[in-house]
């Protein structure tokens, strides 16, 4: 149950060295900064194409903002509902109505490397929600939709309580989302 893998044992050994800890922390910070921007782009791509996302966004007021990131003072992005899609409006906290912040880099990396699902991270008290709980649920549902479209089935099976079956038309939507992700990534990074 609590047996460590070889990788975890090696990491524990390496963490005994101060220099390694510094390198590890910088690497995680960099990884999270990139991963959050990729997710920012994914929000844009999926929300512009997926019918499930469109349904979720129907009740969102224009200009609603939320942030995803890492406490304390870790990487963070703010996203906003603009028209029928969600756009990343920049890094850092930009006056969001709601923020979902992981308590530390380790927790965030676990979720953004798909080692752990969002639900399990919440169950293990790894995230802080500032703002309305109902709005947080709305964001988490959209995050789920994004993951369902972007991640392979074996990861979904590991991280989701119930994995929804895909119809043929949803596979087509998935292809369109991957195609839309490229310009969204370009917009996000440049």
């Amino acid at each position, binding site marked *: *149950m*609590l047996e460590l893998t070889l990788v975890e044992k090696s990491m524990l050994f390496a963490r005994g060295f101060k220099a390694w800890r510094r390198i590890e922390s910088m690497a995680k910070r960099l990884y999270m900064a990139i991963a959050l921007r990729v997710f920012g782009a994914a929000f844009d791509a999926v929300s512009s194409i997926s019918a499930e996302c469109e349904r979720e966004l129907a009740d969102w007021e224009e200009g609603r903002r939320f942030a995803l990131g890492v406490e304390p003072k870790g990487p963070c992005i703010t996203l906003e509902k603009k028209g029928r899609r969600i756009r990343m409006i920049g890094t850092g906290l930009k006056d969001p109505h709601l923020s979902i912040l992981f308590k530390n880099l380790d927790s965030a990396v676990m979720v953004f490397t798909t080692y752990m699902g969002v*639900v*399990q991270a*919440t*169950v*293990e*008290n790894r995230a*802080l*929600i*500032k*703002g*309305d*709980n*109902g*709005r*947080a*649920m*709305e964001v*988490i*549902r959209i995050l789920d939709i994004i993951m369902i479209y972007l991640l392979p089935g074996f990861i979904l099976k590991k991280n*989701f*309580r*119930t994995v*929804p079956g895909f119809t043929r038309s949803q596979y087509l939507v998935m292809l369109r989302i991957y195609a839309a992700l490229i310009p969204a990534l370009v917009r996000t990074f440049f």
Partner: protein
Amino acid sequence: MHMPNYYQHYSPGRIVAGYGALDKIPSIMERLGCRTAMVVTDKGVVGAGLITCVQQAFEGTSCTIAHVFDEAPPDSSNIASNKLARLFEQYGCDLFLAVGGGSSIDTAKAANIVISEKTDDLLKIQGAENIEADLLPVIAVPTTAGTGSEATKAAVIFNEEKKVKMLFSADQLCPTVAVLDPRMTATAPPKITAATGLDALTHAIEASINLQKNPIEDAFAKAAIELIAKYLVRATENGATDMEARYGMANAALFAGIAFSNSTVGVVHSLAHACGAVCHVPHGMANGILLPWCLEFNLPRVAAHIAELAGPLGAEPGGNDPVERAGRTIRLVRELGERLHRLCGLPLRLRDAGVTEQNLPHIVEVALNDGCLIYNPLDVTRNDALRLLRNAF
């Protein structure tokens, strides 16, 4: 025994329980370094003469009750909390003494946040773990055996201007002391006793099967379930004449409160909160109606956990098949509901509790935004929620 890879437990409150436990309040206050209490309650509790019992406990002691605030609304609100906070400072109080059901205790918790965080805009700090200040001491004296608010680290406050329910969750919100005196719950009418008892049962059962289940909460939850199985029908039937049953139920609600404060709750509560918000169905009543249906829904994922509850509910030992044993648990929950229905007319169907079929889609939408869903063993889609409501309708 289920042992998760990770869990947390926090329950720092002192528990003072027994017939006459109220009399200990002044000495507890002295030990806390407090002298002047603000009693937080509602008009129903005052009308039932329960505050007189509290006042009598202060006679001849160095501690005093500065003011009795009897304006706690049925749904704790920001307006009531802000008013209470102003009065608390005006009267120079140093402790909240909440006497009542969940709303009185939550009103005291919210006023405590207002004072300690020096804000009158609770919206800014709603959410989980957003309270940074140390809060003032709160002594909670429940007058219903159900909400468990005397032992929980959460408060739900209705924002009257924005018409939204705000959830606060932080370790500091756990009351400093919970005082269980069976005299305080003895006057509750049968239907309230039954509904609040089913609320406590739902807390205990959901805490034992959901994703934050852990061995400590299991122990509290199973003890609560055993007490409820033994005493709920008696407390409903015998009223004020059966103090043993009242005392058993007060303990059950507290144990269940500790369990769900740490393990949280699941789909039953999400749907019950929504039934309350849309159709004003009393919370315990909605929980009692929905519980067996939601257990059936979760059964494919957590049959073994549900099966473990058959014993505490009074089933004979035996039967190795977890699905069969889980079915027994669900039957026992149904039978308990039916007995209470026969005793006091507690509804068994949502349609008898004020819900119409046209309300169901709206209830679904509200339920899907309830944070409790995260902790349910199975994902709950719109269709699942609607099916559950139709089953219980």
